Each structure stands twice: as structure tokens, then as C-alpha cells.
């Protein structure tokens, strides 16, 4: 496999989960709720999915794919339920949304590590804070994967990448074509207008944040099956924050956000490829991991001027205020 192939394959495997997480962020923020909690949501989702997977692996054949898919469903459910903390703090108790997001993140790290230890101890009888998963199977599309260069897109594909693309297309449709999406975007621009049109602003926002919980969990689970191949505190590496950066560069719209995610993904994979090529010690890998963040800093300088965030983003909605 050529270096270029590796760059494309690894880049996509990193970028796509980030993309689905960013779409979750877009849903939440377009409805008017600032969501820094993506990091915590993906981690908590991965925890729930990871736990489900290790529990199920004991009773299924090694080659069965059922635990794989069930674990994603469990992750989504876990992420959505966990996002209710953000919902409660921001919507019910009208807390500051930035602080709420940070709280959700910190709590996620503490809670999942604690629970993972207790469960490993109690259920499996081994003291560890990890749920070891097998790396996901991969497949190549016959024919297409032989095309030079772009064929790499169809080579060594994780099943979750396909799932993410399908879900992303579906979410785009929901956002821009359905009444619900229209209500959601209205709530983020002028909740008073939405309210006057008979829309229940708090309900729409609750659903939006839960969607961000579910989509982030897909991302977390994907990382657990690929980059880390386990659930462990390593899942909290800041990819959630990176996806927030991506959606900001993407101006809160879906396709430009995909572009930003791909840039981050390829920056990371080409850095890694470079190190392999130069035969540098693997400790330099850690250095490469900062590439996307460095890129974030640079992009911030250029893009922060002309971003147009949803007008009512982060504002606490108060019916009486005019």
C-alpha cells in the first residue's frame, strides 16, 4: 500500500467520526444552545457502547458482527441520555451554557473512569479502567478500490464510516427539508419569532441537544473501535473540541464543516506518514497529534472574522423579555 493510500485511509477514518460529532454540534447550536459538551458526550457514549460490547462478546461467536452494531446503538442511547444533563442545566435551570458544557465534560471523564474500574473489578474480576475491544473489521469495495489514488477511499473501510455518511445525509435532510429542521433553525435565530409561530422552543432545543448526544456517541464509539481499539480514558483526547473548531470554520453548515474535518484528518494522517517515512522514533507520533490543533490556531486567525454564528446562540430564552 502506498503512503498516499495510507494517508487517505487513515485521514478518512479520523475525519468522518469528527464530522458526525460536528453535525451534532451544529444541531445543538443552530437551535441556540452552545455545546462544548461534545467531548464528554462522545466519551460517555463510547463508555456505554464499550461496556455493551464486552458484555456481549462473552456470549457471541468471535466473528459475529452483532455486538458491533448493538454497541453503537447502546452508545447512541447512552449519549442521548447523558446529554440530558446539558439539557437540564441549560434549559430547565437556565445555567450558563459554556459552564454547563465544561461541567458535562469533566463529569464524563470522572464518571466513566470510575465506573469502568468498578465494573471491571466487579464483573470481570480484573482491575483495569479499560474495556478492550477488537479493532473493527474493515472491507474494500471490489473494483472501485483499484482505481489509482482515489481508490483508497474505498479501501480498508470501517463499516462505521459508511454508517456515518448515511446518517450525515439523513441529518442534512432533517435540518434543511423537514418542518422540524426549520423550527430548529428558527429557534437559534429568533426564539421569539418561533414562539410566536406556535413552536415550543424548549422542546425543540431539548431534542436538538439529545441529537448532539447521540451523534457524538457514534463518534466516540468509532474512535473506540479504530484509533484506541478499547474504551479507556484515552478516548478523552480532545477530539470533541476539535469538532467544535471544525463546525465553527464550517460556519455552522454541513458541507463546509465536512471540509474542515477532512483538513484536520489529512493533517493528522500525513504527519504520521511523514514520521514513518523519515523513520523517526514512534514517540514523535505524539508531536504529530498536535498538528490538527496547530492548524486550528492558524485557521482561527483567518476565519474568526467572518463567521456568522446563530444569532440567539447561548442566550437564555426568556418568554417575557421583548
Amino acid at each position: 500500500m502506498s503512503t498516499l493510500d495510507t494517508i487517505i485511509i487513515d485521514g478518512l477514518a479520523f475525519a468522518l467520526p469528527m464530522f458526525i460529532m460536528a453535525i451534532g454540534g451544529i444541531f445543538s447550536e443552530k437551535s441556540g444552545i452552545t455545546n462544548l459538551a461534545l467531548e464528554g458526550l462522545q466519551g460517555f457514549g463510547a463508555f456505554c457502547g464499550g461496556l455493551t460490547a464486552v458484555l456481549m462478546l462473552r456470549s457471541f461467536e468471535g466473528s459475529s458482527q452483532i455486538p458491533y452494531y448493538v454497541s453503537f446503538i447502546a452508545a447512541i442511547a447512552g449519549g442521548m441520555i447523558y446529554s440530558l444533563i446539558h439539557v437540564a442545566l441549560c434549559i430547565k435551570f437556565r445555567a450558563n451554557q459554556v459552564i454547563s458544557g465544561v461541567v458535562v465534560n469533566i463529569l464524563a471523564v470522572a464518571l466513566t473512569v470510575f465506573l469502568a474500574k468498578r465494573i471491571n473489578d466487579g464483573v470481570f474480576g480484573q482491575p483495569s479502567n479499560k474495556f478492550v475491544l477488537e479493532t473493527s473489521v474493515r472491507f474494500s469495495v471490489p473494483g472501485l478500490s483499484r482505481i489509482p489514488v482515489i481508490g483508497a477511499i474505498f479501501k480498508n473501510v470501517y463499516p462505521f464510516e459508511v454508517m456515518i455518511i448515511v446518517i450525515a445525509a439523513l441529518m442534512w435532510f432533517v435540518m434543511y427539508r423537514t418542518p422540524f429542521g426549520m423550527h430548529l433553525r428558527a429557534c437559534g435565530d429568533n426564539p421569539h419569532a418561533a414562539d410566536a409561530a406556535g413552536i415550543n422552543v424548549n422542546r425543540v432545543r431539548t431534542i436538538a441537544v439529545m441529537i448532539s448526544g447521540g451523534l457524538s456517541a457514534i463518534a466516540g464509539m468509532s474512535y473506540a473501535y479504530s484509533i484506541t481499539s478499547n474504551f479507556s480514558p484515552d478516548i478523552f483526547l480532545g477530539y470533541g473540541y476539535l469538532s467544535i473548531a471544525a463546525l465553527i470554520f464550517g460556519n455552522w453548515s454541513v458541507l463546509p464543516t465536512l471540509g474542515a474535518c477532512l483538513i484536520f484528518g489529512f493533517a493528522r494522517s500525513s504527519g504520521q506518514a511523514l514520521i514513518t517515512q523519515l523513520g523517526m522514533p514512534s514517540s514523535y507520533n505524539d508531536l504529530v497529534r498536535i498538528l490538527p490543533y496547530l492548524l486550528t490556531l492558524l485557521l482561527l486567525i483567518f476565519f474568526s472574522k467572518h463567521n456568522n454564528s446563530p444569532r440567539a446562540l447561548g442566550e437564555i430564552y426568556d418568554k417575557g423579555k421583548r
Partner: protein
Amino acid sequence: MSDSGYIIEMKHITKRFPGLIANDDVSLGIRKGEIFALLGENGAGKSTLMSVLFGMYEPDEGEIFLRGEKVRIASPRKATEMGIGMVHQHFRLVSNYTITENIILGSEPLKRVLGFIPCVNMKKAEADIAALSEKYGLKVDPKAVISDLNVSTQQRVEILKMLYRDAEILIFDEPTAVLTPQEIEFLLDIIRGLRDSGKTVIIITHKLEEIKSVADRCAVLNRGKLIDVLDVATTSTAEMARLMVGREVSFTSDKTEAQPKETVLKVEGLTVEGEAGNEAVKDVSFEIHAGEIFALAGVSGNGQNELADAIAGLKTAVRGRIYLNGTDITDLSIRKRTEAGVAYIPEDRHNVGLVLPFTLSENLALKRYYKDGFSKKTIIDRKAFEENGTRMIEEFDIRSSRGNKTVTAAMSGGNQQKAIIAREIALKTPLIIFMQPTRGLDIGAISNIHKQMIAERDRGAAVLLISLELDEIMDCADTIGVIFDGRINRIAKASELSVNEVGRFMMGVEDKQGGGTNKVRTGGTAS
């Protein structure tokens, strides 16, 4: 329809807010197919009464009958279902949506994709909106985005929103406050058209001419109480004004001859940039003397804002000098200018005039809070704030629900303006700039502000009045300047200019004595 012939009856409606009664036992009936006006000063309770009818507030006491049946209107959604629509003072539009999207929001026409996925049928919606706007003569482009539209078009969108939901009873809350005279004419025509097509219209306003020209009947509110319901055709505007204010109001300000003394403000060759980086004010020069009201007339958007901001220090001059009592203040900061003697009543009350989330007493101290008497050794003296507030509230009759402690955002527009004027006048500066001081206010408040302005002049202040209302200019000015396209093209004693002449200069007619026809220049139209 009930035997009473009323489509709506409000009986003994009382609505209290903490510390005040906004509606006090109000009973009225509105007939189907009439234009019913609601008249009253700022804070009289008009918006509150209509908000009750639209389901935004529940009345504390009283009942509402709709088409003869007793109803409980628990939410705007219920009101909409009952065929009641309302255009609020502040529009409720989603700024990044198209006109169509705004109108259909909440009741979208659907189509099924692949036979089962519901999605918004935008094509049908756009066609519906186009047809609707055609039917009522409210021309709009269904695909235009709200943030690109001017106020008058946005208002049309609000009207279409009601019509799209088949509202039969249409409530307009001060619809003309934000419009130009031509737009007002157009709106009143639309309203007449709506009545003729069978709708019932309720219009809140404090402009008497509008009521005269459009309404069939008119209810007068004063401090929450219903004073009377009048037949418009048989009642004079003077009578309406008297009932509304609760006392006689003089329409003409009785002011004495000006006694101008030394020059206070001298502007020399001033050039100021506008928002777009264009030259909004071009090489303007004039003087104002102590004891003189200099009124600057002009159509909106001809450089007035920039000129006032430059003198007050909110904008820097590109070229030219500004002198106050002989000293050059061109490069001074805003605070230094205030201390040198410039008071400024800005056009934008909410963003420039007040800090809305602050209390009344804080806002009243805004220009002096750091001084001795308001703070001791840089620590704010709350008590001094309160004393100052109490004194000013008394002296200037500023009405609010909680006095000193009222958050200014919760005050009515008229009282917000009173607070700003009180604060600025109290500085006792040699120069006071009044920018559109009476915009959106009722005649009682207007005549008070004019009196205060004249009193300041008589005290010996130089007054710069900038107004879009020609009547106001003619009533108050000692000297009139007319600004067009950033230049002052005429300055003369008020007694030497007729309304028509001023109007012509406002349109940019060249000042050519004799020879040739008058030429109208383009540019600088109302924005």
C-alpha cells in the same frame, strides 16, 4: 355573531404588573368589519390590553367574549387558532429566513418524499405567498431574505403572516412608528383594504391624524383606565388629544423671540465618514449661539447621524475642526467633551442612550457616576445615586413601576426618553444636541420635550435640534439649516423660511436665485 353586534367584547379586564395596574377594569366591544383605534400616551396600557387579547398575558380579572362566546385565550397559538393575529411593535421575524419561510413557520405545507417522509413543500408555499401578496396588494418577493429588507417590507411580512393563518381580527401595535410618511400612507391604504375585505382591524397609535384618516371608532386609554370610546367622524382631534393626555394640550409651542448671544459651537469644514466608508458629511460649517435653537432639517440618511456623532465624539472627523466656546474639541474623548460642555440626546435610545439592563437610578447617573458626590474615592455611593434618581424622577415626571430600581429595559419608550433628557439637561452644559428627540412619542410627551428644549435655550444654552419631522423644525427653530447629501445647502432665520422652501431644500433643490428651473439632484434618499 352575538346580539350585541360585537365580534369581540372585553369585559372588566384588569391586568396588574408588580407595582402597577396596566389595565384597570377596561370594558370594550369591537364590531365586525370596523377599524377600531386604541389611543393613549406611552405607558397607558394599550399594548398590554392587546397582549391580553392575543393570549400573551392572562388577565387578572375580567372576561373575553369572541363572537358572543366566552373564551379563554391561553396562548398566542390559541389566539391564532381563534382567528386573531397581531403585528407587534418589535417584529418577530427570523432574520436569516426568506419571506416565505417566515410566513409558513409553524404551519408548513407538507409533501411526502418517497411517499412517506414528510418534508416542507417550499414550491407550494412560495406560490401561496405570491398569490396572497397579490390578493391584498402587499407586494413582496417570496424568496427575499429578511435581513436584506427594510422595515416597511418586514412589516408587510408580518401582515402576510396573519393573513396566511386566516386571521379575521388583525391587531397592529403602533405600526406607523417606524415608517416614513409615504410608507404610512401606503399602510393605511392596506388597512382600509383589509377592512373592506371583511376583516376587523384594531390599530394602536398615538398619532391623531392617522386615527382621523383611517379609524371608525376609537377608544382612549389613560393610565390603564378606559376614558371613552369615540366616533371618530364626529370628534375633533383637539378633543381626542385632551382626553388622551387628561389636560389641554397646545399644538403650537408658545415661545418667545430668541436672544442669541456669543457663539458656543463652531463647526468648520467638517467631513465625517459613514458606515460604508463614504463621506457622509461633506465640508460642513455652521455656528450656534447661546440662547439659540439651531434646527437641522433633512430627509433621513443625509448625514445627520454622522454629524451629531462627530460633535458628540462618537465618530472622529476626517477633516475640519469643532470649537466649543472657542476651544478646539475635535480631538477630545467623549468624556472630555462631556466635561467641556456637550450634552447629547441620541436617536438610538436603546443602544446609545441607555444601558438597558441597568436600573433607572444608574442610568440617570451615567454621565457623572465617577465624580465627587456620586462616588467616594472611586467607590460608588449608592445612596447618592438614589437621591439623584429620586430628585430627577420627581422633577421630570419619569413614570415606571419601581422608581429608582426599575430596570430601564422594562420602561415605556416615552419614559425612557424622559430619563435620557433628564440626565442630559441636568448636566447644565452650554451645548445640547437633541437628535430626533420625539420619535415615536405621543403628543403629550412631545409638547413637554419641546417646552424643555425652549427652557434650555432661555437658560442660555446653544441647542442643536436634528429632526426628520418638518413640523417639529418649524415649531421650535430659531435658525434652520437644511442638510442634503452630507452638505448644508441652506442656513437661514426660521422666520425667513416657509415650510415649502425647507421641504424643497430637503429634496436637494439647487439654491439658485433667478435663471433656469430648479434642478433636483439624486442621492441621499431615505433609508
